């Protein structure tokens, strides 16, 4: 499953990243996403549930679904 498919408030764990768009993956890593991190989707935007906010180890990060789709997760 990828982060954009995760239901709201479902605790999950990052398992890896897409091999596509390495530039964006690099930025995701820099801002803090890493393997085994705990993530939870908290809020959605008004249209098309886009963008979304993700609680990442206690920090709140806003992303669009396109970026979230690059993060692989498993529900806990």
């Amino acid at each position, binding site marked *: 499953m990828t982060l954009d498919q995760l239901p709201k408030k479902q605790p999950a764990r990052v398992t890896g990243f897409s091999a596509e768009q390495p530039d*964006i993956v*690099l*930025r*995701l*890593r*820099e*801002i*803090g996403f*890493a*393997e*085994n*991190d705990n993530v939870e989707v*908290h*809020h*959605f*935007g*008004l*249209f*098309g549930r*886009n*963008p979304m*906010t993700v609680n*990442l*180890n*206690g*920090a*709140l*990060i*806003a*992303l*669009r679904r*396109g*970026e979230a789709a690059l993060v692989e997760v498993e529900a806990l």
Partner: protein
Amino acid sequence: MNTDVKTRPLRLALVGAPNCGKTSLFNALTGGHAKVANYPGVTVEYRLSDFKTREGQNVTLMDLPGVYGDYGHSLDEKVTINAIRGEIEGEAPPDGLIIMMDASHINTHLHNVLQIKNYGLPVILVLNMMDMAARDGIEINVDGLQEALGITVIPAVAVRASGRGHLTSFLDGWINDIRAGKALAPTPQNESLKAMQTRARAITAEHVSRDRVADTFSEKIDAVVLHPLGGVIILLAVLFFMFQAVYTWSGPGIEAIEGLFGVIKSGVENIMPDMWLRSLLVDGIIEGLGAVIVFLPQILILFAFILLLEASGYMTRAAFLVDTLMAKAGLNGRAFIPLLSSFACAIPGVMAARTIEDERDRLTTILIAPLMTCSARWPVYFLVIGAFIPATKVGGFNLQGLVAFGLIMVGVIFALIVAAILKRTLLKGAKPTLMLELPSYKMPVFKDYLRGLWERAMIFMTRAGRIILPATIVIWFLTKYPSRAEGIESTFAGMIGRVLEPIFAPIGFTLEMTISLIPAMAAREVAVSALGTIYSLDESAAEAELGGVIAADWTLATGLAFLAWFIFAPQCLSTLAVMRKETNGWKWPLFAFAYLFALAYVAAGLTYQIARGFGL
């Protein structure tokens, strides 16, 4: 210049993620008397200030734009990276780095410290906002962390003097070590970001614990403020209140400034004989400057709101909330902050677009920034609305205020349309992304807040002095010479107006209006004072008087056409100049000028013809 590291002022740079409190620490250590430096080529700012440590050592501190690690994705991040590497022309590299990190987010960001260690400069880590981390149940073993990272770690609460004690007492020893070449500089490691993350996570797992996973303070607020629909309604209410406040709270300030300029003017008139120099001083300089400085109260109120929204942490939430709409225009939520600043003035807006990572998104934002109604256009709105729109109440709101709000909204809607078109044609590119950390809510520090407001006021006043002052002198000359025997028509301005008249006649503009558009290029608010001069009025004495004259002289159709023109009115020369600087060439400023002129012309023409069709 003294280049000996043992005796010259030591250069230290503050590095850290956005919103980790760098600027608060910078202001606290240096007393805030910063000089804002321009990066050669593109103007991207960092701040420099000298201060003395406890033991009296001289330090030059650099406050750099926020970065997470060692990649510069946006223009402002690149400045930080270049400054650390000493690649900014005319700026020596720092001798040491002070990394700042929000202690609450150490789990998420610790790998950034490992990245920054790789610059190979002496480095220390300041964990800021330890009080808030403790409140959220986060416990940090500082000694353990220090040992694991191999660098000094200093807990701090940067906004409080007591919270900076550890840091200020540490600095002298560290500076001595750097001067003596004994300070520990980490050896750069050839390690992938993934490996650094793994290492950082292992360190935090051992030395940082979170004893409860309760809702934090910020989460409770966000449940309301980031609600998909409720949040948007709150944001609209905040913006509406802000615009109402700018209009209604500025009254006394404006009157005071007008009064002050009136006193100066009559003072000069009393002590000087009636000659050309007095006319230049009174009709040119005092009138012209007064006409512009009168907007200082509105600028201050607008920035008082913007700075409050920024310092409290709400601004990034607003960016998140509007992102969903911005996506439709092909932009991202980050564009919200530059666009909001553009309501005060397009110049800071154009510069703030640097934080946008994608170059095409940044260009699009710069090009639409002039469609946000800058405060310089408000006097024009005030004048024309006051002359033609009755001050009745509609549904509890002032009709004039509603019309003004409507004009602003037309600008916003067209900005989104233009952005959508640009992003599908000229500036087509990769799908825009959004990646934005929403910081915890904080109480703004009053002193930092006032300082920010002061800096804004100074930028505005400097602009008034450097651009508007010379412009008003030129206008004075053009509207006075070679002769005013036959009124405005026999002056240079009248002659220029004659040439342009055929262009503007079809959209209902009179000769006087056409003439006023020329000085409005220097600064749009000058259109009002120019109209005053042209109609040979003592304009600052009473704007209402000028309003009365135009109400009698113009038809309603003409008045509405003038308003429509100013929604789109091609931007002032200083905006064009800053666009040239930020885009490294004349291509985009000329493009912006052309498209805004075309929009303004068509909008004014349509308004005029339709209004006439209705017999107005």
